[in-house]
């Protein structure tokens, strides 16, 4: 499987993401710069975390309106898998590729710690390496991760199995409705999540709970 990592001014988790994808798939991802409008032929496009365009206006708002995102949107509509982590999640929401919005953390504080996640739906291209109901560890680092959607949208994404990850064991760090940490689109090929699975993929990180997400998305699950 071929993958790509989007690089925009202000994103700073791109190198962690490139390292994770390289280690797990055995192939380095190609990189996509902000000015590109022709997206290479890949199976997975990852938008990493950071502070694209200084988080001006709203987190992810400027990035979501750049031409590169229009090109990514077209790829997503054609079925290519797209994963947005942290600022990447904010960008996907602002671009309208996922439902809902992310607001300032309820505590008003930047949170940087490890939380627990429940894998709510393991029957997806992003989570098949896990078991439904499995609790995994994952780091978070963000200021605006407070997931909001109107009650109708919330009901729809819950009923459709689009909530893939929920903060578990009282570790919701930001006030997200229904403890939502990760949301997939209805078609099942676009996932956004606030936690950073790329930072927990090997012993040197203190664990590898995040590995399953990339193994699923890259289709390299060990038999």
């Amino acid at each position, binding site marked *: 499987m071929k993958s790509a990592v989007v690089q925009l001014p202000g994103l700073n988790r791109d190198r962690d993401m490139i390292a994770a994808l390289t280690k797990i798939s055995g192939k380095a991802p190609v990189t996509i710069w902000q000015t590109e409008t022709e997206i290479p032929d890949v199976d997975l496009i990852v938008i990493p975390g950071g502070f694209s365009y200084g988080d001006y*206006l709203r987190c992810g*708002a400027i990035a979501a*309106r750049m031409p590169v995102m229009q090109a990514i949107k077209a790829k997503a509509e054609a079925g290519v898998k797209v994963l947005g982590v942290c600022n990447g999640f904010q960008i996907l929401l602002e671009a309208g590729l996922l439902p809902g919005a992310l*607001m300032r953390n*309820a505590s008003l504080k930047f949170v940087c710690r490890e939380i627990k996640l429940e894998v709510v739906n393991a029957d997806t291209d992003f989570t098949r390496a896990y078991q439904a109901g499995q609790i995994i560890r994952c780091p978070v680092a963000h200021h605006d991760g*407070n997931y*909001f959607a109107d009650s109708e949208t919330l009901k729809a994404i819950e009923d459709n199995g689009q909530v893939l990850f929920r903060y578990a064991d009282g570790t919701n760090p930001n006030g997200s409705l229904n403890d939502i940490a990760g949301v997939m689109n209805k078609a099942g090929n676009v996932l956004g999540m606030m936690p950073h699975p790329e930072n927990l993929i090997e012993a040197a990180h203190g664990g590898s709970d995040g590995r399953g997400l990339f193994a699923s998305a890259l289709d390299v699950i060990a038999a």
Partner: protein
Amino acid sequence: MINARVTVTLKNGVLDPQGKAIEGALGALGFDGIGHVRQGKVFDLQIETADKAKAEADLKAMCEKLLANTVIENYSISLS
């Protein structure tokens, strides 16, 4: 030339933690009886046209496409 002001506020029912914190700080300063503080944004723009209707239509499109996130925010437009 038309001067415009766009005001973006959070929709009713959307929790505003910053508004709450400001409300608490106002209370701490001794301002009693303050409630329902909501934080928003103001954009002042100049538009090179004399056509008010066109300016208004353009501003509405700007709000829908960029200035407001209509999932959580309302906007209002005033021209002068």
